[in-house]
């Protein structure tokens, strides 16, 4: 990995003192590529991702992205950094009572002044881009539907489009397919994967479906108990590793 886009150094997080969720995590991410972070529930995958865009405050460590330490940022600088990082959520987190178009344009809120945002005065280029994106994610004609009228798969497509609207330099996805059926899950993963390839940006996805991770990821990071226990190619991930990550072995026997 010669060109490092995102570098996490010694990251720790304690929600309650003395009970670390993340212990001294150090990871480097290249300028492109699909990284899957796998591990059991409650092992800090979500916390790790949320520390990167500071939805969660890290307790210690540094996160270097585009020449600055995200951990040290605050106020306007933090918001500007965030606007360059797209995020896709497990439960889609769309604003339910806004339309699909309004949800997409939410991705531009980091670039539009409060007064213009209040009156829904977005630049025409943003609006054109949003309509084009709706075509790309297969939701043409849905622009004026309210988000709460969509199915799970459709909502996640809107969620992805919202992240793309930010023109991100990095996309984080927190269990984006955990609430979806297997077929839709594959479709959504394909969409996220293709997005990374098309925009040439790094993608970091939390997931607990190992097979899905192996299918899409260029690199797999296995976490257990707040530390990284595997970091490498999907092909190198063996049952021994899975046993370390998830514990036990009965579940591995088919």
């Amino acid at each position, binding site marked *: 990995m010669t060109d490092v886009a995102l570098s996490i150094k010694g990251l720790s997080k304690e929600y309650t003192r003395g009970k670390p969720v993340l212990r001294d995590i150090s990871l480097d991410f290249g300028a492109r590529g699909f990284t899957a972070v796998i591990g059991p529930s409650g092992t800090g995958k979500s916390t790790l991702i949320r520390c990167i865009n500071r939805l969660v405050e890290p307790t210690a460590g540094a996160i270097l992205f585009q020449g600055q330490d995200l951990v040290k940022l605050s106020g306007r600088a933090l918001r500007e950094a965030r606007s360059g990082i797209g995020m896709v*959520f497990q439960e889609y*987190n769309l*604003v*339910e*009572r806004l339309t699909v178009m309004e949800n997409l344009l939410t991705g531009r*809120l980091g670039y539009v002044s409060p007064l213009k*945002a*209040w009156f829904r005065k977005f630049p025409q280029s943003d609006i054109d881009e949003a309509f084009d994106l709706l075509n790309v994610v297969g939701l043409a004609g849905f622009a004026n539907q309210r988000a*709460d009228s969509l199915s799970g798969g459709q909502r996640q497509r809107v969620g992805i489009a*919202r992240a793309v609207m930010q023109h991100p330099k990095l996309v984080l996805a927190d269990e984006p397919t955990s609430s979806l059926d297997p077929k839709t899950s594959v479709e959504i993963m394909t969409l996220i994967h293709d997005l990374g390839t098309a925009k040439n940006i790094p993608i970091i996805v939390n997931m607990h479906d190992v097979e899905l991770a192996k299918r899409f990821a260029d690199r797999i990071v296995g976490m257990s108990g707040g530390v990284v226990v595997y970091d490498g190619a999907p092909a190198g991930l063996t049952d021994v590793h899975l046993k370390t990550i998830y514990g036990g072995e009965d579940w591995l026997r088919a």
Partner: protein
Amino acid sequence: MNANAAAVRVAFPSNWWARAGWLLLVVYIVYACSLLDFTWARFMIGLDNGARFIGRMFPPNFARWETLLKGLTESIEIAVLASTLGILVSLPIGLLAARNLMPVWVTWPCRLLIALCRSFHPVIVAIVFVKALGFGALSGIAALTVASIGFIGKLFAEAIEEISLKQVEAVRATGAPFMNVITYGVLPQVFGRFIGFATYQLDSNLRNSTMVGIVGAGGIGGALFAAFQRFDYDFVCAMLLSIIFLIFAGELLATRVRAVFLERGKVDEE
């Protein structure tokens, strides 16, 4: 179940505290009735008086319709102005009082202000304003504005405290500045309920604006009270009928407003 089982198993343990509470309530009601001479005989004597009063109310007398109309329009003005002012002020106060968005040192004074606005009945507040600002509609407007701030501020803050923070988190993650997070992440979630509170408050202010006049704070209440004291019961009847008409019209308007604002998404409110 075997009758010889060691112990009878009880699904619901008896709650002696609750039983004692109910008993206490019954005892207090009997005591209060005896204390206040709240008896059937007393009621029957009163009924006779009431029948004569109602007899003198009919037919209603609309001869002084100019006084009536003047009072009525003033009441409407008081209600509309107080509602508008109250809603405008209560929006930021309610937002600042929401404990899930604001730090304690901001919510605490706002919640105190809201509690203060809610502690007194509008008529008592109107008396205070009449003393402070003098007779007339200004005092009525001030009094009902205070009431509106208390009511809408409290309900608005509570509505905000119940929103889904996941939607807010997603908007924050886009790098949106605080005001944009509010307009896109918070307000859409509470807008429907806010329209409900606002129309209800307008309705309530219409009713209260016919009453603050009794203490000299403008509106039809003043004329109503004067007519009562002069035993002009037929004119009283005319005014009461007009107020009923006004309230119905207000109710109709509120329903229309709700329909216009909320039909867009067929809101599934409460």
